[in-house]
């Protein structure tokens, strides 16, 4: 079992939900109100404005990378669905600009369904 933790744009959450259902992965957890920063890449218009010496653009740049609101989407899938889930999330969320997010894949040792006490892959479907 793998846990796929994806940090994505807020406006892509609904599209990601739909795409994951179509890919056969209905189970899904989203965390609201997550703030984050990446390598500090900013919008090109602001950068160009700052280079041209506009004071508003320079003020927007600031010293440190700004915190940007994102959503975290967590999916736990059996090993064989891992690749599908990653490809689906990348296809749905890719705009090609900095800030599209990251996907982390971590191992899960055990899954237990609370209602029945089932363990392992049986608890996932």
């Amino acid at each position, binding site marked *: 079992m793998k846990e796929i933790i994806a940090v994505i744009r807020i406006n892509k959450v609904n599209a990601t939900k739909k795409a994951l259902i179509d890919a056969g992965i209905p189970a899904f957890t989203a965390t609201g109100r997550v703030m*984050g*920063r990446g390598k*500090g890449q900013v919008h090109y218009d602001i950068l160009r404005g700052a280079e041209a010496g506009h004071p508003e653009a320079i003020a927007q740049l600031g010293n440190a990378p700004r*915190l940007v609101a994102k959503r975290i989407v967590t999916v736990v899938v059996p090993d064989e669905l891992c690749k599908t889930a990653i490809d689906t*999330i990348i296809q749905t969320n890719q705009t090609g600009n900095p800030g599209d*997010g*990251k996907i*982390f894949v971590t*191992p899960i040792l055990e899954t237990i369904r609370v209602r029945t006490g089932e363990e392992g892959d049986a608890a996932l479907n």
Partner: protein
Amino acid sequence: MLMIRTIVRPEKVYDVMQGLLDAGYPSITKISVVGRGKQRGLRVGDVVYDEIPKEMLFTVVPNTDKDFVVRAILDNAKSGAEGKFGDGKIFVSAVEEVYTISTGEREADPSIPVKEA
């Protein structure tokens, strides 16, 4: 790669984040959480608060940088020189794969030498 999850006091978050930025780790995600620890929450007179607000910081780093990043967090997250109850915890877990969505590429851990095919 390793995921470092840190639970810190809300008033220390920006110190820790600035410390990580200065140490060269700008990428981080912050979530507001509530929780309790070994002290079973906070007792003020007869009132017990067992859900204390904290902030959780997520960051994923190369394997070899773990000790350095943990040290950078510890230096900034402690209250006073000695530290106090409620300063938080750091959890480190394994991350097998990392992808950047904008390029769709899998990120390699820079600390692991690439095998020639």
